[in-house]
């Protein structure tokens, strides 16, 4: 749908028709945008209602007996661990109800406690200590930069099942490195700490804060659509601007930009360059492969024999971490996760970063063992990454480019003796190297079958 020449205007499209189409497109976009804002709206709604409930003045002595039956019903109907049930409980009754299933009893706290705990955690409550707020180390919302300290949610999850005494012991009698230093002079009141525990328990039940989808690009796109509409209307109906070229230039420019946006987004579909997700354990390749110089193949030990390089089994971590129980920056918290996983027989669910589509066959053994490639060539300098990021876009073009330039281990590997003609050519000096594509490295069925 490029508007190259005026001829097309006459034969192909009538301006009226085009306008119709355009208005349709705007309609579609608005619908999409509306749908987007709808979901957001509903999230907002629930957040609002929570806020309202939370801020509503409640009195512990108010109507305990009257509502307890009600509570029981709610608790039985809904999944007790779900947020909805929790909220219902809170909304219906500010006091802990006695007749609840065993699991829920432990985690019902007074709303005020939770609120107070949150304030305390955020450092909004004045207290006698001069220490920084909890949140200055233990972030509540996900952060872009790597924070070695466990997040509030991490802590909350870990201590959800444990009682207050244990929690207190950890906070007040810190052990090891960084934590010992920071927590050194803590002398909180039990009452305060209890509210913090209440807040954390609540946080754990609630789960991570939902990340709102960004609609910047969509808004920009819609805005550009408005400009186009205006430019078209100007060109055909209003005709207020003296120089007809101006709206046309605006139209072409803006439309071009829209096409560029679409192209970029389209190309990005299914690719995830620079993907850098948070992992369940703050494992740093920089520390392990960089500072400690552990060979990649020590952990990814199937890389030379299998298509998959392999995520190391958890017990392999324990080769070192059965002794190394504390990190310089991360303390004990992260390493403890590995040990817990092994003890509880629950494997660690890492987030997969490099993920090729199902119709692509890729073998690490081929590239690393036979092709003698260095890990860095595809994965970037992982030894410098605290959080692993996908450096290359892993597109087919990227693969092919490499296959066209990369030299094969032609002379060193006896396998290639079968390629007699090429050996002949090397001998004669007609070619000085054999690249992957010369032996069929760009054939479809090298990767797709």
């Amino acid at each position: 749908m490029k508007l190259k020449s005026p001829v097309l205007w006459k034969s192909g499209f009538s301006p009226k028709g085009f306008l119709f189409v355009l208005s349709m497109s705007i309609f579609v976009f608005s619908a999409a945008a509306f749908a987007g804002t709808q979901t957001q709206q509903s999230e907002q709604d629930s957040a609002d209602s929570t806020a309202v409930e939370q801020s509503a003045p409640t009195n512990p002595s108010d109507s305990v007996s009257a509502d307890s039956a009600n509570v029981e019903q709610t608790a039985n109907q809904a999944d007790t661990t779900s947020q909805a049930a929790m909220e219902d409980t809170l909304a219906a009754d500010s006091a802990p109800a006695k007749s609840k299933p065993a699991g829920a009893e432990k985690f019902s706290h007074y709303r005020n406690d939770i609120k107070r705990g949150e304030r305390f955690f955020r450092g909004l409550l004045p207290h006698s200590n001069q220490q920084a707020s909890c949140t200055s180390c233990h972030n509540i919302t996900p952060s872009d930069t790597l924070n070695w300290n466990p997040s509030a949610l991490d802590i909350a999850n870990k201590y959800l099942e444990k009682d207050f005494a244990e929690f207190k012991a950890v906070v007040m009698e810190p052990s090891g490195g960084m934590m010992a230093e920071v927590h050194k002079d803590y002398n909180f009141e039990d009452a305060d700490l209890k509210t913090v525990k209440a807040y954390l328990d609540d946080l754990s039940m609630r789960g991570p804060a939902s990340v709102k989808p960004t609609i910047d690009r969509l808004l920009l796109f819609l805005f550009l659509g408005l400009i186009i509409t205006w430019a078209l209307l100007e060109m055909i109906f209003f005709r207020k601007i003296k120089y007809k070229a101006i709206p046309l230039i605006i139209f072409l420019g803006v439309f071009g930009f829209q096409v560029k946006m679409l192209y970029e987004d389209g190309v990005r579909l299914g690719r995830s360059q620079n993907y850098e997700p948070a992992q369940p354990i703050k494992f740093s390749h920089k520390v392990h492969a960089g500072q400690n110089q552990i060979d990649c193949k020590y952990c990814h030990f199937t890389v030379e024999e299998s298509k998959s390089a392999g995520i190391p089994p958890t017990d392999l971590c324990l080769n070192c971490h059965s002794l190394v129980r504390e990190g310089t920056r991360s303390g004990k918290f992260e390493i403890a996760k590995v040990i817990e996983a092994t003890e509880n027989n629950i494997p660690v669910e890492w987030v997969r970063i490099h993920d090729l589509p199902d119709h692509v066959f890729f073998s690490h053994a081929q590239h690393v063992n036979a092709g003698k490639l260095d890990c860095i060539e595809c994965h970037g300098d992982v030894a410098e990454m605290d959080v692993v990021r996908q450096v290359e876009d892993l597109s087919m073009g990227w693969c092919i480019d490499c296959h066209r330039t990369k030299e094969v281990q032609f002379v060193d590997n006896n396998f290639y003796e079968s390629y007699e003609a090429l050996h002949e050519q090397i001998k004669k000096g007609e070619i000085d190297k054999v690249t992957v594509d010369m032996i069929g490295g760009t054939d479809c069925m090298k990767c797709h079958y």
Partner: protein
Amino acid sequence: MKEQYYKSLDDLIYDARLASSEPDAGDRKSILQMKQEAKSTGNSRRDFLKLFGFTVASAAIAASCEQPVQKAIPFLIQPEKIIPGEASYFASTYFDGIDYCSILVKVRDGRPIKIEGNTLSPVTMGGTNARTQASVLGLYDNKRHKNPTYEGKKISWEEADEKIMLFLDEAKKRQGKVVILSSTIISPSTKAAIQEFLDAHPGSEHIQYDVLSASGMLKANEETFGKAFIPAYDFSKAEMIVGFDADFLGTWLSPVEYTKQYAKNRKLVDGEGRMSRHIHFEGGMSLTGSNADERYQIRPSQEKLVLANLLQELRKLNGQAGSSVPSSPVDVKKIAAELFSKKGKSLVVSGSNDADNQLIVNAINELLGNYGATIQTDVHLKLRQGMDEDMDRLVGEMESGQVDGLILYDVNPAFDYPEADRFVSALQNVKLKIAMPILGEETSEHVHFVCPDHHYLEAWNDAEVKTGSYSLAQPTIRPIFKTRAAQESLLKWAGNPVDYHTYIQKYWEDNLLAGSGEASFDDFWNNKLHDGVFESGRNEAEIQAFNAGAVESALGQAKSTSAADSLELAFYTNVSVGSGKQANNPWLQELPDPVTKVCWDNYAAVSPKLAAELELEDEQLIKINDFGPIPVIVQPGQEYKTISVALGYGRRNMGIPDGTIGQNAFPLIQTQNGAKQNYLSQVTIEKVAGEYQLARTQSHHSMEGRSLVRETTLEQYLANPASGNEVRETIKSHMKSLYAQRKFEGFHWGMAIDLNSCTGCNACVVACSAENNVPVVGKEQVIKAREMHWIRIDRYYKGDPENPELVRQPVMCQHCDNAPCENVCPVAATTHSNEGINQMAYNRCIGTRYCNNNCPYKVRRFNFFDYTGADAMPGNKKDPAEMTTDLRRLVLNPDVTVRAKGVIEKCSFCVQRIQEKKLVAKNENRTLKDGEVVPACAQSCPADAIVFGDLNNEQSRISKFFADERNYHLLEELHTLPSVGYLTKVKNKTI
């Protein structure tokens, strides 16, 4: 005005318009014209749709779909030698009560996905058959019993054991009889376990019941040798084979073993100039019969007479006086003379279950000196040990209330016992009924306890298929459901709660270690487990001398055989569904019958002559006595008065996904002299109104005058090795091209198929489906000619339709170096690789099907729907066989893309296997060895008919095959330069 004809109302209206409008309107407008006209009318509907499509697409993109987060979950403790992404192979044994095969199981990331033949086995020698290949799909079957039940309700194993043992104790006290009814047991450890149970419950009994029984043969051997056994046959030593209704290449006794032996003796490569001669007598057209050099049609009831005549002729030749028997419908003098000249190098076999027939066969083989030569009596085949009389006696005892408890192990008499209804009602008199099935079976509905057994891929087991030939089965996956090894259940109820693995080990340590030459049991066990097989060298005790006395009475029987002229109904089992044990296996149901090419049904095959007489046509429904209605297939080569119906169909609640496939013919079987007969005489047929559509993959019977299959006779071949293939020279001389023939750097893959070895058993078709995730499309789609098999076995009839010869030809993508499909692809989705492979990039394919149209071999397949659940759009799915369920999808090969709707696919020469082996060679720093790359079809072939290799390597086997004068290419006159070659078929017959 002229008289007007029209096919539809549309035509009529169009014609009317033509008549009324301007004089030149008679010409239909060209598409181009119409396009231009459309353009001139301003913005059309199509323009609008294009733009609207663009906006929708842009909206979708701009709203930027988020990708799901993928998890990578490693092992907690990675087992040694288990490498994610790499397959492991475990030696095991396939035995389902009927078929035996020593196998390797390919396990990828913890799940078995493919069965391969075990080349170390001296019995099956690396061959497999269709049923063995398909058995892996049975593991992932939703119809399996998922936990023990009591009267249909789920219970725990502990509860079940408690209740059962309580009953067994009571039965013991009152000395009640408990019967274990099983199929043939070839596992020595299982036998020991059963014995242990019998010892713990005195008065109980173990009865073996075979669906396809060999009682007649067992009885005959008991009379002639004093022992009921099945001897070991060796077809590879036989220069002359005469078969009587014994489908030894398809379903008779040990077909994989026999196909290996048979094919070995019929190869004319490497300068071999001898091949066996095979003569077959039968009523219906069987796989084996269609492979014979000469085939004679006889009614099943005439078999005795022909055998008797043959024996008498042989006796005459041997100088013995022969008593007179009525003359045979077939003149056997010549055959007798030929057989007599091959004394000690011949083999006569009969598939009859009539002891008299088998007695005469024994006498013939004895006279020919075949015992000790081609038939071993000191090595017994342990399959089919069941005596039909025992089962009949049991049903009688059940009816009279003498049976207290009945344990059904791997049997389904409510389906396959001829008097199934009688059996079911007799079950009412049994106080405790336990079934130990794998699948939900008809019989399980009538029992108290269902104690499900493991699938064989989940279980430990052992087997002694022939005397001294042991093999082991090992679990290749953890039990998917709450099942328990049947042996463990029996042992537990016998008061010995031991796990079966330990039990087998103990058995092997006590009984087999001694003769093995290994010092420690661990070494012995580990080595044998690795190999999967163990030859102990044990032989059976000497049998008594041949007792000819019984033969005379059998001959007497032959004399009294009246030449009844009524219709006869012959029962047979086909290579796909077999006895019906795997009737709900979609791979097998969709496998076309090697003769009729029908899948998803059974039918009544009638001869063309009879069809003409009774005015029967294909798909006409008939009733045979009270059986049916069943559709008719007019089968060339069928004996005039014989109607054939396949057994194993008609299982209830086992169809795919539900319902019944075909008709159950088991109730028609009659017992004579205590043995189930494989034919029924004096049947009447009656036409029923209506037709029934059958799914047939090949309707064409002729080669349309082209030399697709080239054949010759042995005599001509010896005179001129290129005989039958003369046309090749002419074609070669015409092959002139302006373009230089492409040279392939490195490898140039090629495949050769020896038509003389191929029996058409279909093992390759199932192997290919399993290896390459070939979808199952269901009957309805097969009728529309949309079957997806990458390899098909064409069959053509030749000569008189009443008794034609039959030739077969496996056809897969020919990987033409001058491929017509490649030129016409508008998106370059199919191209030629650097190694001569015609490659297919599914993700590029937009489904124009131009390639399909332009392929002269018709080997390209189009996914009209999403049959495997690969598609993101649920509306595209078509799942006639429950193949898209999560459980079934576990069988998919992760190295091969699962194709979505709308793309073409075809044979890839198993490129994943080529790439795998190349990588192995690279990593080991060596060249690729000839024969290292074996595609799935070649691996599975029990006849070793398929050879694959590098054509660039002059020393390779494939190059030798291509240089053979018998080699030719399919439709080579088209100058497509295929990479697949065929070796001419040579028949050992005189013209």
